[in-house]
């Protein structure tokens, strides 16, 4: 009895899980593995469109009473790189209408014209004509003929399914002189973005954890940067920081803080002179990091606030009795209570920031020294149109991510489950 019940339970569990697991497998796991496959191939963006035989129909009258027509099919191979084999063609003609002097490649059967065109090379074009005549010498409805779409099909090689592999993509990724810089930029961005967001999150959480007038309002607006759509916020910031007529530059010039506007998003380095030492600051990268901090500190804030509110009140009451001031309370009670959560938060936010694409893409597009790994995937795959290279960079990201996750689970995986 009990075994059959557990069998039913198992079966139910699998049925309930099946749709979700299938979908996740198809859209998330399959692409990750497909990346491996594509990264070993030389594939460009233009190669992935399956070549199709296409036809455009044009109709010409030859007789005044419209009883004879020429139908011109502009035939072409949609791909400029790949052949199509065994192209077959068929088109339907209305009743009582028949072709005259039909091409050798074609035959006419039960009011259908069927042709076999054989092989079409890449970029093949042909104007194929059929003369048709109404058997009863009536006018032919040319609109009707035009509305009939011909059927075309053929065989072609799918470059993605072939088994030619190459190591060229990985060679290009790793041998590239800029690879080290790419990696360093990604780590700068990730590390400082995460650190800044967490620090700001601690401040914000500590603030909202106190009682003051307008506290609920403050808590809501603190989440705005994250809740708002990234497209709108990134463009607003681009506008604010614009060197020509951006508000921030105009204000600074207006109040005499700077003499000339600074292109905060378009300038790679800012040279600062401190006591004779020349310091090169990655300006655009710094600006992007600040945007990143601005947009993602709400998440750190939320999580830290939840932890702060769980700290037992009597700890603070005891501190009050001992006569500790607010700073002492913060450093000796609050901070030790939240360190474990901060380490988890840091790891997770690190992984997430490492993958951030939209923010940098919308602000600078990866220009002026802000090229990170995710942006590089896009650039290789879609700007340079080299899908294989893009996949190879994706593989680098996945491998690094797996490393981070292993570190994460080794270090604090157990703690994470307790919270």
């Amino acid at each position: 009895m009990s075994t059959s019940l557990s069998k039913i339970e198992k079966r139910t569990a699998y049925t309930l899980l099946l749709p979700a697991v299938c979908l996740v497998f198809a859209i998330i796991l399959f692409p990750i593995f497909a990346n491996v496959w594509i990264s070993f191939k030389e594939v460009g963006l233009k190669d992935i469109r399956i070549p199709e035989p296409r036809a455009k129909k044009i109709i010409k009258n030859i007789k005044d009473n419209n009883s004879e027509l020429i139908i011109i099919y502009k035939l072409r191979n949609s791909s400029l790189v790949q052949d199509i084999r065994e192209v077959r063609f068929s088109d339907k003609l209305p009743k009582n209408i028949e072709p005259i002097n039909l091409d050798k490649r074609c035959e006419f059967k039960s009011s259908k014209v069927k042709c076999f065109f054989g092989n079409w090379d890449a970029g093949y074009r042909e104007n194929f004509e059929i003369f048709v005549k109404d058997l009863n010498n009536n006018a032919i409805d040319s609109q009707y003929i035009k509305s009939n779409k011909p059927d075309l099909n053929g065989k072609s090689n799918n470059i993605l399914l072939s088994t030619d592999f190459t190591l060229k993509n990985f060679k290009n990724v790793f041998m590239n002189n800029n690879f080290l810089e790419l990696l360093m930029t990604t780590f700068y961005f990730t590390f400082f973005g995460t650190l800044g967001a967490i620090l700001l999150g601690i401040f914000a959480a500590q603030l909202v954890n106190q009682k003051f007038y307008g506290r609920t309002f403050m808590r809501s607006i603190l989440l705005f940067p994250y809740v708002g759509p990234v497209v709108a916020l990134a463009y607003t910031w681009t506008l604010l920081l614009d060197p020509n007529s951006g508000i921030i530059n105009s204000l600074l010039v207006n109040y005499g803080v700077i003499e000339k506007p600074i292109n905060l998003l378009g300038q790679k380095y800012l040279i600062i002179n401190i006591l004779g030492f020349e310091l090169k600051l990655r300006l655009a990268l710094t600006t992007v990091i600040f945007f990143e901090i601005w947009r993602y500190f709400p998440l750190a804030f939320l999580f830290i606030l939840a932890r702060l509110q769980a700290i037992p009140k009597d700890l603070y009451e005891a501190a009050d009795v001992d006569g500790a001031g607010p700073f002492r309370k913060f450093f000796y009670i609050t901070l030790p209570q939240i360190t474990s959560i901060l380490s988890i938060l840091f790891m997770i936010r690190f992984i997430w920031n490492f993958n951030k694409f939209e923010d940098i893409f919308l602000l600078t597009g990866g220009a002026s020294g802000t090229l990170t790994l995710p942006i590089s995937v896009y650039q290789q795959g879609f700007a340079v149109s080299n899908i294989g290279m893009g996949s190879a960079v994706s593989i680098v990201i996945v491998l690094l991510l797996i490393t981070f996750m292993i570190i994460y689970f080794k270090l604090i995986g157990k703690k994470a489950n307790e919270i």
Partner: protein
Amino acid sequence: MKFKSLIITVFASSIFLTTIICIWKIISTLQGLSFTSLNLNLNLLLSLGLTLICIFIGNKFNHILKILILSSSFTILYTFLNESSPLWFSGGIFLLILFFTNVLRKYDFKYLNQDFISEIIVFEFLSLFAIIFFALVILFPFYIMFVTSFKTQTALLINPLDLSIDFSKNIIEIFKSYFVIFKTYDFGRYILTSSYVSIGTVLITLLFAIPAAYAVARLNFFGKTFLSTSILIIYMFPAIVLVIPLYTVFSQLGLRNSVEGLLIVYTATTLPVAIYMLQGYFKSIPKEIEEAGLIDGQNWYGIIIRIIIPLSLPAIASVSLYVFMIAWNEFLFSLMFLDNPKTFTLSRAINHLTGDAETPRQYLMAGSVVVTLPILLIFIYFEKYLVSGLTAGSVKG
């Protein structure tokens, strides 16, 4: 002790007053007033004087009378000493000083005599600074986005700092950017597409996630622990590594440029976190309720529909709002998959607007307001649910 705390109070509070006056001045500059100097020294001196007077008077008089007299006299002094400015600017200064003197109410000599008072004072003023800082840093871009959408191209070129809305124009002129983006740029259609995609994603995600979450939370089956850990790991994989294979496969299947393609991808990417959040809530429902249902002859499906779903409506609400937000704000996949303006979502449409360098910025900002406003309103209205969704979704995954 008393002297030290007095000095700290005076300095902290006068810096605070100077800061808020400066911020008010900068905001007024954006309303078209042509200030070119913040007059920091003068402001600091005035604030110092005001603080000292406030503390020395203490609570000897009626509080309201005191702050009214102090603020009006200092406002007049301020206006007299600074460059000429319209009445509303002075009104703002008056309100700021009123607020400030009210804050200073508790700082009398008795208060300053407490233990550890200097630390407390620094902490209190730091909090005040933090409130101003966060409010400014967060709201300023939203404010700029909003007001820029009401300007015209020529006005912005003449004076980029003047963001005041000209109310003397008729209402159609003021809202012109909005009319243009709806008429010329077809934003009505994009709003519909975005809503359709977001609501569709929520419904399909729930349809798939509720049964799966129930199975993970309640039923025993082979591979359960493996599945529940892999949910989180899968959620960590970013969209950017999925994009190239999905792009190639979707191109070959003809799913690019279709809303259905987006629906599938959005659902799959939000499913892990939805399952994770729901199963956590399902586990907290007492088992006895379900057992009662089993005895009544319900099968598993009946239990899910009649018992689990009605009991976990709050969790379902937060998952729905979270998923809605993700789908509404999503950009990467809509950028990759959609190139036909007929299938654009709002985010993609705004990105498309910037592709043309000629597009005036007020149209861009009007579009941004159109995409931002709904999600902010939803957030404000359902804050409680969305916050719990955000907390679980952002950090656990």
